[in-house]
């Protein structure tokens, strides 16, 4: 069993590169994180952005930079990690410490700790809920209700709790202005602004999800529960949230003297998520035990004989041995039976019902409760002839029943049937597992066709651009791919490809095209010529009916132009980083692989020091979002403009658009999702890590 012995393992911590090593050391030496910091050993992995951390690594904590921005808030859905802590000098969690829980195991399924001053400006509730969706902790269907409740509770804890603002009374414009100014003052003060906000989520065994929001203020006394959600217009701006929260959750509790609000949600779908999780654990366990569960001949099977009388055990053993079954294991009571099952993982259990300590019914139940043995055949043997006992043992999970005194031929026949069934099932499982792991390898290979973050960032800097990208594969293999092709010191080529469909076929095609792209040294040709050549090659390789959309373009930093050709690619967006204004470019053209002599057109647009360019796959505009519609053309432009105006030239544009998209898209995408941005920037960006 792989469990146990984990507690002494090193904790891998993901750290934002802008955080100084000594500040991280201080954080992990303090009692804020662990109960006994001295007993814990840590290893840090630094990264400039959340995209830089491998999805293969599992992190115990993620340390966010002080004054967290939207980029690092995005780590909540990007990192394989359950605990996120902002590293700021005044952090003192007091009675909320240690956030890792008393034991060295994670106490929560998700925990986020932010300073009040960071939290105020961020869409924390939204990102928290998106993260819960992506982790399968809540279903898409209740996400909207959860978000509304968390938003209200969070605002209350932040405004009334940590900032201690009194928003009571009638809200006039003057009062509103005054409140706004006081809010800014308190956010800037070390006393209020540096208090922590801690959000946690935990899934109970019954499938309920429990979310807590914790502040460090003076506590809050909840008003009358009977208040309705109707808003009295004479009331204040804030603090009407509670009735709304109550209408959205199953229950609301106040703990820590009103400094913690605990929301419980019941979600029909969480049951499914729980089952999925159980299935995964089961699979993991089976994979772990698979060397032992190698395919065997029935005669090589391990058989457990559980019976409290030695004579019975010997009789059964002698029958089985006579027929060639020699791998026999014995148990003399119910408890012993369970111990032997755990030790030997038998292929068949012959179980007596009436035994000391634990009877056969209880053994059956216990065995079936453990997913690792859910399918192990159990033949119950009993002298009971009454129907009640027979029905009961089947209810408790026995596969078959055999009556005492035993008939040798019957025992052997039943043993063989159940073992053969088991071997068939195992073979099938082994096959599925192998396919699964091969698919996993193919997925990794496909992900590696795309440039890694440090690569595209570095290349971008060489050309005075900030390049950002997000790639998310659909549940299966997909057909998306993008890449950068440096041509000379002022020209950079870029391509984005989407093969029709997804799954193995589309994935194989991306491999084909990738090798074509990198074997043909034609990148400096005009984009239309380039696509024509590529199309001719691809037409020869692709089976009829398979095709790809593609855009190939060249950013020329000397001539300040972007010239491109498109084979039915989604319309690229060209925008201005200063004004935020953006427009769609023409993406029309024949898809690759359809006709042999397709002609393409090179189009040229200005691309200067304020320009940005956005390329994306159709998943961005063809996924049904939370409002039941696709992201419309105008919607994307508005999102870009808002993002650029809020963040300026100093943001990872594609990553931020992806984050906003993920907030509103289903947790499982039907198609690959690729988004790439090239944004002119004042390089070097060495000081540009925050905000």
């Amino acid at each position, binding site marked *: 069993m792989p469990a146990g012995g984990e507690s002494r393992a090193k904790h891998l911590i993901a750290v934002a590169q802008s955080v100084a090593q000594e500040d991280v050391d201080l954080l992990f030496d303090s009692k804020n994180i662990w109960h006994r910091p001295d007993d814990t050993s840590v290893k840090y992995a630094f990264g400039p952005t959340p995209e830089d951390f491998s999805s293969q690594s599992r992190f115990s904590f993620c340390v966010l930079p002080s004054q967290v921005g939207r980029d690092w808030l995005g780590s909540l859905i990007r990192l394989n990690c359950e605990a996120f802590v902002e590293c700021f000098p005044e952090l003192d969690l007091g009675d909320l410490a240690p956030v890792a829980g008393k034991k060295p195991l994670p106490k929560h399924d998700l925990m986020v700790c932010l300073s009040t001053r960071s939290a105020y400006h961020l*869409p924390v509730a939204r990102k928290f809920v998106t993260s819960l969706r992506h982790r399968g902790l809540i279903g898409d269907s209740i996400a909207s209700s959860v*978000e509304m409740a968390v*938003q209200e509770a969070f605002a209350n804890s932040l405004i009334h709790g940590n900032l201690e603002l009194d928003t009571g009374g009638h809200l006039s*414009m003057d009062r509103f202005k005054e409140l706004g100014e006081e809010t*800014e003052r308190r956010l800037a003060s070390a006393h209020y602004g540096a208090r922590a906000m801690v959000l946690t989520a935990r899934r109970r065994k019954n499938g309920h999800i429990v979310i807590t929001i914790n502040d460090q203020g003076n506590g809050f006394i909840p008003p009358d529960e009977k208040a309705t959600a109707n808003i009295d*217009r004479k009331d204040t701006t*804030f603090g*009407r949230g509670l009735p709304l929260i109550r209408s959205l959750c199953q229950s609301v509790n106040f703990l820590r003297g009103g400094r913690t609000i605990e929301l419980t949600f019941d979600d029909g779908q969480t049951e499914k998520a729980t089952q999925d999780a159980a299935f995964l654990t089961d699979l993991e366990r089976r994979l772990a035990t698979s060397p032992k569960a190698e395919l065997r001949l029935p005669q090589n099977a391990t058989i457990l004989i559980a019976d409290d009388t030695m004579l019975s055990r010997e009789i059964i053993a002698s029958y089985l041995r006579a027929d060639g079954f020699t791998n026999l294991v014995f148990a003399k009571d119910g408890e012993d039976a369970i111990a032997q099952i755990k030790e030997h993982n038998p292929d068949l259990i012959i179980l007596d019902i009436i035994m000391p300590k634990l009877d056969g019914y209880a053994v059956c139940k216990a065995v079936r409760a453990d997913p690792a043995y859910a399918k192990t055949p159990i033949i119950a043997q009993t002298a009971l002839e009454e129907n009640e006992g027979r029905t009961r043992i089947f209810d408790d999970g026995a596969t078959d029943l055999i009556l005492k005194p035993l008939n040798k031929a019957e025992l052997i026949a039943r043993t063989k049937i159940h073992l053969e069934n088991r071997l068939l099932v195992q073979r099938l499982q082994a096959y599925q597992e192998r396919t699964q792991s091969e698919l996993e390898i193919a997925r990794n290979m496909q992900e590696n066709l795309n440039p890694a973050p440090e690569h595209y960032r570095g290349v971008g800097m060489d050309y005075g651009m900030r390049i950002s990208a997000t790639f998310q594969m659909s549940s299966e293999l997909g057909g998306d791919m993008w890449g950068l092709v440096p041509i000379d010191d002022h020209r950079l080529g870029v391509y984005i490809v989407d093969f029709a469909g997804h799954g193995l076929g589309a994935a194989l095609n991306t491999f084909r095209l990738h090798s074509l792209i990198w074997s043909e040294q034609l990148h400096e040709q005009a984009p239309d010529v380039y696509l024509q050549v590529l199309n001719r090659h691809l037409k020869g390789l692709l089976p009829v009916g398979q095709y790809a959309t593609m855009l190939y373009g060249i950013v020329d930093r000397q001539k300040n132009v972007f010239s491109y050709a498109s084979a039915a690619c989604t319309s690229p967006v060209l925008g201005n980083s200063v004004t935020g204004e953006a427009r769609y470019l023409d993406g029309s053209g024949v898809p690759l692989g359809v006709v042999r002599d397709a002609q393409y057109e090179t189009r040229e647009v200005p691309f200067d020091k304020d320009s940005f360019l956005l390329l994306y796959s159709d998943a961005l505009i063809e996924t049904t979002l939370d409002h039941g519609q696709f992201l419309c053309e105008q919607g994307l432009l508005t999102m870009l403009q808002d993002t650029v105006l809020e963040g300026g030239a100093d943001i990872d544009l594609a990553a931020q658009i992806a984050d906003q998209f993920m907030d509103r898209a289903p947790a499982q995408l039907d198609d690959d999702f690729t988004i790439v941005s090239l944004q002119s920037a004042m390089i070097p960006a060495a000081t540009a890590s925050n905000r």
Partner: protein
Amino acid sequence: MNYKTEFADGITTVEVTGRFTFGDHSSFRKLIEEVRGHESSTLVLNIAGVDFIDSAGLGMLLLARDEGEKTNTTVTLRGAQGQVRRMLEVARFDTLFRLED
């Protein structure tokens, strides 16, 4: 939250986009001050592009309404969708504002 204002024929139209929540205090104050200068008879808040609103955001809409009453300006909320529409319904804003699709 972001906004764009347009003024024509005594009608001010404000297109509001993004999330409209407690943190939008200062941008909303700017919006109100900007609109006040127009002295228009009707203020249309086009909130079709707002994808999330919380109770603080609702409070700010009420504030816009109060301001409107002082200057005899009718405030209309236009195009609420999804969660925003749901919030307006829960808060019975149909009794307080003119709502348009």
